[in-house]
């Protein structure tokens, strides 16, 4: 298993645990006094689950298992993969912090965190598609 795949998969598992933990907290009855910051994390819960866990797990497995391009450069430009990994995770973590901040302190100017998070995650997807596209092919047979 390539090193990048290990990072994708281990990160994905951490996000799954984080999402489920947040799910437990958000499911606490209304009588439990939670900070408004935490109550505003419902969208973060879904995205920890679907971006952090599902999409990141898929990225890691695609990078590992899809047909290689050539023996010399089996998985294409590995730097693109690392850039995608870093952008996806930094963007997602920025969202997890920035979304409740912007929701609970709308006058404090934290909105740019969300815009930056959006750009980072979007770039991660673009780079990953660019990396994976040439590997959607028949099995490599040499040459």
């Amino acid at each position, binding site marked *: 298993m390539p090193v990048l795949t290990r990072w994708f998969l281990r990160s994905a598992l951490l996000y799954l645990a984080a999402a489920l933990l947040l799910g437990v907290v958000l499911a606490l009855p209304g009588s439990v006094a939670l900070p408004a910051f935490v109550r505003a994390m419902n969208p973060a819960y879904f995205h920890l689950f*679907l971006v952090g866990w*599902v*999409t990141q797990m*898929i990225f890691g497995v695609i990078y590992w298992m*899809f*047909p290689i391009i050539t023996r010399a450069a089996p998985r294409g430009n590995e730097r693109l993969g690392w850039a995608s990994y870093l952008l996806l995770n930094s963007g997602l973590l920025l*969202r997890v912090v*920035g*979304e409740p901040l*912007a929701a609970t302190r709308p006058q404090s100017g*934290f*909105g*740019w*965190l*969300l*815009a930056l*998070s*959006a*750009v980072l*995650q*979007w770039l991660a*997807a*673009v780079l*990953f*598609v660019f990396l*994976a*596209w040439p590997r*959607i*092919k*028949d*099995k490599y047979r040499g040459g």
Partner: protein
Amino acid sequence: MPRLSQWMVRAALIYLLLGFTVGALLLAHKGLPLHPILWSWLPAHIEFLLLGWIVQLAMGVAFWILPRFWEKPSRPRENFALAAFVLLNLGIWLVVAGTTFQLGRGALLAGRVVELGAVVLFGVHGWGRIVSRTGK
């Protein structure tokens, strides 16, 4: 990777880009308001990513890696999987038409029915391929 899987995976990656593009606009709009009409794209964002990206990728990879048979055809009832591919994508756009483009509940309902049909057809294709090495 068989040709049909290539189509499904390519389509899935295109939906990933569509879904992330809409999602990025929605998230940015949350922080720095861009245009109120963007919120009407939330159902499309969900549809592109759940059905177009995740479900379609799973179907494409399943068609590729589920056990094949020694005798031809090695992937029986392939036409069912092909029909599933067509119907799933038709269903996604009908749902988007019914929600984001507000063409009415008829389009939404038709889209959901077509998506269900796609999954049933894919199940008919794949059921017999869920076997052990001994074929049981």
